[in-house]
């Protein structure tokens, strides 16, 4: 229903240039000459470059990307508000666009009058508006304020009114620009249901969103734009995955660029903590002013084959290998590894619970901590290390600090029988810890389960075989 072929659009950074170019292009148009769409004049840039995609009946396509990526420009071209400078857009059927809720509303007129004008602007005949008015007001939940001037409405109420009008029109192709971001939760839910109904009636929907949950749950395909160019175009789940992967890799790369070696980045809280310790240490003259008694030479993350890595599949085994050096003997050492995501502790592997190491360590050595089937969801994590001596009293021998970071990928999630509608997005954006569980449904307590739901994990993701009777 929508076919976009090699479309480009350029904009101008300077207003004055833009006005002059506008006159020139208009002059060329008036004389029937094509304007040179493929050439960038001074101060011009490509807002959209060589964009191609198609949307068929019953499909929903999401446009994702950062601000200024060209998403709204694309939507405006699809709506015919902007003409492409290159390429071709073909749209079959009636198009309805909602680029901004409440555009064209007049504040001094009543809700009813505004509905009539807005609907007329969107092309609805008067008789149809008369018929649809009660439903519009009911959907917007504004039956009681029909005659109230719009200037007394909250922005949420205006948005609800506008959405109710626009979706009442029953177009073949619906274009939406982040309009679902408004309104309270109940209203958003209503909007989602209406869009889903659209899709089921074989209509096409194209919408812009920053909400990856919406992309995964509501869209069949997605286009990820960056600086006007397509980064990925394909199944929505693949685009979401690549989008998140890239964001996370960026986080790691930034962390590496800021820090050095195995100590990527001290977060703000950590820096503050270290500063306080530094000050305390300066006060205590008795303590050696130099570094910790236990020096951390390197920390490695190993996968289940024992190979150093920075990325691990979901539910994989992990080994943290710590190379240390201590000139003086340390009695009954205790190590502690904290796993953090977004500067929040997710869990701690600590020998304060598990028990102390050998009677004494001295010189160079290695300590490894192995965790089977790491219960962390796909995200970026960092590890903070802390070490103690528990000889006569508990004393700190290595200051708590970040020693490594790694990423859990969603590789292999496909082979896990997770059939929830938002499996991938919740795993990736939801809480950090994943605990396997079993859901049983019974007709009555104590009977045989009528249904069992359990995620099944493939062999590759863990060292041992998984038991499972999921369905």
């Amino acid at each position, binding site marked *: 229903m929508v076919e976009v072929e090699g479309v480009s659009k350029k904009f101008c950074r300077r207003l004055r240039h833009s006005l002059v170019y506008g006159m020139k292009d208009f002059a060329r148009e008036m004389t029937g000459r094509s304007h040179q769409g493929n050439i960038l004049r001074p101060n011009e840039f490509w807002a959209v470059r060589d964009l191609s995609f198609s949307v068929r009946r019953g499909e929903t396509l999401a446009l994702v990307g950062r601000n200024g990526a060209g998403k709204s420009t694309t939507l405006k071209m699809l709506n015919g508000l902007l003409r492409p400078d290159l390429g071709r857009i073909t749209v079959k059927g009636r198009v309805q666009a909602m680029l901004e809720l409440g555009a064209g509303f007049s504040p001094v007129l009543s809700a009813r009058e505004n509905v009539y*004008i807005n609907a007329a602007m969107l092309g609805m005949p008067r008789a149809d508006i008369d018929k649809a008015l009660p439903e519009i007001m009911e959907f917007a939940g504004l039956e009681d304020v029909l005659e109230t001037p719009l200037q007394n409405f909250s922005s949420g109420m205006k948005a609800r009114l506008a959405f109710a009008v626009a979706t009442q029109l029953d177009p073949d192709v619906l274009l939406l620009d982040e309009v679902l971001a408004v309104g309270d939760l109940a209203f958003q839910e209503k909007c989602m249901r209406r869009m889903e109904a659209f899709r089921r009636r074989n209509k096409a929907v194209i919408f812009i969103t920053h909400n990856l949950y919406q992309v995964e749950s509501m869209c069949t395909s997605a286009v990820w734009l960056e600086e006007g160019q397509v980064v990925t175009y394909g199944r929505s789940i693949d685009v979401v995955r690549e989008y998140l992967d890239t964001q996370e890799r960026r986080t790691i790369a930034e962390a590496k660029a800021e820090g050095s070696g195995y100590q990527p980045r001290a977060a703000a809280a950590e820096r503050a903590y270290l500063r306080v310790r530094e000050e305390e240490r300066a006060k205590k003259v008795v303590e050696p002013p130099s570094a910790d008694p236990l020096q951390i030479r390197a920390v490695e993350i190993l996968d289940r084959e024992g190979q150093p890595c920075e990325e691990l599949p979901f539910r994989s085994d992990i080994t943290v290998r710590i190379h240390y050096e201590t000139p003086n003997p340390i009695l009954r050492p205790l190590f502690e590894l904290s796993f953090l995501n977004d500067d929040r502790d997710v869990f701690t592997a600590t020998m304060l619970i598990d028990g102390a190491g050998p009677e004494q360590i001295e010189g160079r050595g290695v300590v490894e901590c192995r965790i089977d089937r790491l219960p962390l969801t796909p995200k970026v994590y960092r590890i903070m290390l802390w070490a103690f001596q528990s000889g006569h009293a508990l004393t700190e021998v290595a200051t708590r600090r970040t020693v490594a970071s790694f990423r859990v990928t969603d590789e292999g999630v496909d082979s896990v029988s997770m059939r929830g509608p938002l499996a991938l997005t919740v795993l990736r954006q939801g809480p950090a810890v994943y605990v396997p569980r079993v859901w049983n449904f019974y007709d009555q307590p104590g009977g045989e389960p009528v249904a069992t739901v359990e995620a099944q994990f493939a062999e590759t993701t863990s060292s041992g075989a998984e038991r499972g009777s999921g369905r």
Partner: protein
Amino acid sequence: MRVTNAVYSPDPQLRTPGRLVRGMIRDLLASRELAWRLFARNIAAQYRQSALGYVWAVAPLLLTSSIFILLNSAGLLQAGETRVPYPVYVIIGTVSFALFLDALNMPLGAIAAARGTLPKINFPHEALLLAGMAHILLNFVVKTTLIIGVLVMFRVPVALTAVLVVIPLAGLLLAGLAIGIFLVPIGTLFQDVGYTLGLVASGLVFVTPAAYMPPRVGLLSVITAWNPLTPLVMTARDLILHGSSPYMPTTLVLVGVSILALFMSWVAFRLAMPFLIERMGT
């Protein structure tokens, strides 16, 4: 929802004139209902916040006419031999001339007022012009009460052929629209056009024989002779007061030219709108 089976490409629209004209006719037809809504909205929005309402439609006109009448009675203005009481003469003249002026200023104003909506909603833009035209006509109807009032007050008889006055009046309206719409593209991009229009309008009233008979000598006689508004304003007044006008043939030619010019500026308007909307931003 008006867009059905659309193709958007950078190819100049003039290369497919058939499609262009079909689109113009389709949008004109499609915009009638919206134009009516917009017209009603403009009226409501304008008068809901005003206590005097329609008085404002005639107030500027009354002021201008009063000044002319005052100047004339003081002997400061040589209006010439008008054959009817001067107030009758000047009010018919200024009401007719105001029709042209309103039409001239309307398109740029209508587009400027819709600046917030144009980049957000794709609707037939002809509706803005139609709504503006309806507003001009309504104001004109209100103003004709002035003419009727003054005719009754001075007991001036009106000939039956006065109904032909719609021809020169249509000429004034169409000429104003043609020029006003033609100025939309450049006027929307550059504010200078709007400023210039204001200046020209205030000067134009003095070089058009709205408040005086066309002079026989001097520079003004040359200007009024070449001013295309002269025959239109003169015909309108002559038809009401005398039932016929020597300017009628010229008026008919001018009406024809105005219709043609209006069509051409409509084409220019359509071709320009995408470029203008692009530069209105969000």
